[in-house]
């Protein structure tokens, strides 16, 4: 634990074109560490979905990635509106995204389900009006 590697990213809430910078950065860093490409693919997709969610719903946020001995931990934190019904949000196809978001190809209601699909553990902690923290783990 003491020599765990960690990376921190601020996710810009203003722009869809810059969304993905954090996940691209993580992908590059993990590749340099020689981590299995399939693990990298899972981590970077889960993180990108989280980044997009923070841009769509929360005006940005922060991402912290830690490489532990047996897993990669991703913690996404925002001070957005929070998720009122987490079970509903986890359903494939359920989305509260607006039409302009859908026109970009997002808002299909697959973001959170994909984050769950590609990670081994996922925990959502959300308070309406305060924000959301999502913790995900991908084991080696």
């Amino acid at each position, binding site marked *: 634990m003491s020599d765990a590697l960690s990376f921190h990213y601020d996710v810009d809430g203003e722009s869809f*074109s810059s*969304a*993905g910078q954090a996940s691209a950065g993580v992908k590059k860093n993990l590749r340099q560490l020689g981590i299995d*490409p399939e693990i990298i*693919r899972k981590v970077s997709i889960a993180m990108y979905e989280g980044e997009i969610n923070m841009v769509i719903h929360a005006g940005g946020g922060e991402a912290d990635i830690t490489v532990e001995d047996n897993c990669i931990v991703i913690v996404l934190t925002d001070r957005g509106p929070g998720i009122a019904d987490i079970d509903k949000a986890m359903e494939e196809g359920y989305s509260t995204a607006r039409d302009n978001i859908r026109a970009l*190809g997002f808002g*299909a209601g*697959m*973001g959170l389900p994909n984050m769950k699909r590609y990670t081994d553990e996922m925990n959502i902690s959300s308070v309406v009006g305060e924000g959301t923290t999502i913790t995900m783990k991908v084991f080696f």
Partner: protein
Amino acid sequence: MTVSELAQLDDFEAVALPEADREIDGAYSGDLLSWVMGRARAGNAWITIMSNINVVAVASLADTACVILAEGVIPDEEFTATAQARQVNVLRSGKPAYEISLILGSVL
């Protein structure tokens, strides 16, 4: 078949080929980005009509072999430059997604 071999076929045109020798292993067609991230497999050719910059990010993270822009879609310069910089192969075709799928079905 490699991406550059596919780009040589009549109905395809190269937009960016930073990893031209990448092998294509199957294909996926879709325009909803999260569906693509959830369903496309690494090494697939991804057929889409979307050409916003997020397509490059999705192709990179999902590790597809290439993006094939269907229906004669022409990407802007930022799209092409970003694809080149992020090692994302991009082709385009005047054909609709269904017809591109048929071609891939016969050549892959």
